[in-house]
């Protein structure tokens, strides 16, 4: 039924045309980022630059462009890595107890987390902001790690609980018979078996933290410790319409995540499909 016919070939080329149209924004992004200040005004928006000009990138990255992009990059990496580490640790421990407990309270706790996934952050943001400000956690990397961990913990617990439910208890029983303590059983036997779950949590939660703008705008807004999206927002706000500079910073902000995606695209797509399917 699914032989490769001329009709299939036609369908294939149709989808390639679609893909090219779909990804055209990236063409404009790159071409404009490589234009000089002069050319970006005079040349057509569709035309490639007459000769690629990389000065926009050096302007944006170095202090001469007066941007916090590099600092934002470092902060974003720290915050994302710290949040992922905490989310994996707390999420796996909590998910494990919920999945392995047969008591009724564990079901109640499970629904507590399920509702928290859909609960929007907007309403809690104001009290959280007041609370964080009173204990001096606004404008700090540590504060953001704690905040993101709390915000994304329900997702992490939900994913881990699902994976743990699918894992039989044979490994734990065998390790217990061999004399391992409960802590050893978990960290030496169970958690290593959960690397697909850990990968899914790291990708989904890491992506949300890395790309988040709303929370970091509020908690880091006026501070020196901005994340990449916030630094980008303020910098672009100061640029008016210098599209070559704007696009240079957009390209810089996209490189880490795109490189990571193209390197591990299979894990990304599986993570989204498998993780959210539940």
């Amino acid at each position: 039924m699914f032989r490769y016919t001329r009709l299939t070939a036609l369908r294939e080329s149709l989808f390639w045309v679609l893909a090219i149209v779909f990804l055209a924004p990236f063409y404009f992004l790159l071409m404009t980022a490589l234009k000089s200040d002069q050319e970006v005004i005079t040349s057509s928006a569709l035309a490639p630059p007459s000769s690629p000009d990389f000065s926009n990138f050096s302007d944006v990255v170095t202090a001469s462009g007066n941007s916090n992009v590099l600092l934002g990059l470092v902060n974003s990496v720290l915050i994302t890595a710290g949040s992922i580490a905490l989310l994996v640790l707390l999420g796996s421990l909590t998910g494990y107890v919920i999945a392995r407990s047969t008591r009724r309270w564990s079901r109640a706790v499970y629904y507590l987390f399920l509702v928290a996934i859909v609960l929007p952050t907007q309403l809690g943001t104001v009290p959280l902001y007041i609370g964080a400000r009173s204990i001096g956690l606004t404008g700090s990397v540590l504060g953001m790690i704690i905040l993101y961990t709390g915000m994304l913990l329900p997702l992490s617990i939900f994913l881990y609980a699902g994976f743990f439910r699918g894992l039989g208890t044979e490994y734990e029983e065998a390790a217990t018979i061999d004399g391992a303590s409960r802590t050893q059983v978990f960290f030496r036997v169970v958690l290593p078996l959960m690397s697909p779950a850990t990968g899914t949590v790291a990708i989904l939660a890491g992506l949300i933290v890395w790309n988040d703008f709303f929370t970091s705008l509020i908690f880091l807004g006026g501070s020196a410790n901005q994340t990449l999206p916030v630094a980008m927002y303020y910098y672009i706000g100061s640029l008016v319409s210098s599209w070559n500079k704007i696009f240079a910073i957009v390209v810089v902000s996209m490189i880490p995540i795109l490189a990571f995606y193209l390197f591990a695209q299979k894990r990304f797509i599986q993570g989204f499909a498998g993780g959210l399917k539940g």
Partner: protein
Amino acid sequence: MSRTLETKTEAVLARELGADRGRRPIGGRPRRAGLLKFGYWWWALPGILFVIAIHYVSTGVGGFFAFTDWTGIGAFEWIGFDNFVAIFQDPSKVGALVNTLFLAFASVILSTVVGMGLALGLNRGLKSRYVLRVLFFMPVVLSPLAVSYIWKFIFDFNGPINVVLRALGLGEFAKAWVADPVWAIWTILIVIVWQNTGFAMVIYLAGLAAVPVEMEEAAAIDGAGVWQRFWHIVLPSIRPAVAIATTLGLVNGLRVFDQIMALTGGGPASATETLATQVYKESFALGNFGYGAALALLLTVIILVFAVVQQRVTQGRPEEN
């Protein structure tokens, strides 16, 4: 879905085990030391407390402030439903509510249709289907803010769209799209759909992978057309995938914020404000914490209601779950 079923069996199991445990200890030595055979119950404590504090307590406190006139500092008074009355009497807030609902529903419908089309096309047969999937999924991983800046240029007065229009002799249709009161909201819709389509596609592909080829073949031999096969065989099997993709799309669509901040800032003349941008502006730019909290409470209630309704509708009859 299978999840509810699983929990049900576990509940039954729990009761049996509990009764069993009352009569005699399982295994050689007594297990009274903990509720669990593996791990310790208190391992869950940090996670539970964290979630209760950051999600439930803060949301509860926020809900309380929705009924006050607090400005973030000093004293405040309980003013009942005054904030909500003010919201519905202010045309710009009602406009923000309408925009939020429009963006959420229109983006879900468009992403579902396009994403389903892509998933059906890239499910089987094509040689380069894996490469194409990676390409169509690419926008999903990018920051909505960064993506919105690219589109802002595309919709610019001297941007690619207008260049093409002028080249085609349709110069009179060229305009500053994001500054146009009628078109601005549509530009935001396009950006959201462009970014969500790949996500919908991947969820539907995962659903389609579970549809047996034999069943489709059998239906084809029996003379079912493409449309009939889709409607009667494929669609019922991927119903859970549709439920997930539309629910998540709706929840995210209702929260839309980044795209608006980057593309229009809520303008022109509040034509593209949403509840999320209004919450931000009232609470953090104008310092009307109580009023902002009331807007946020409205958004929360809308999201929870639609999430529940959406799950019910798309999952269909209970016995199918």
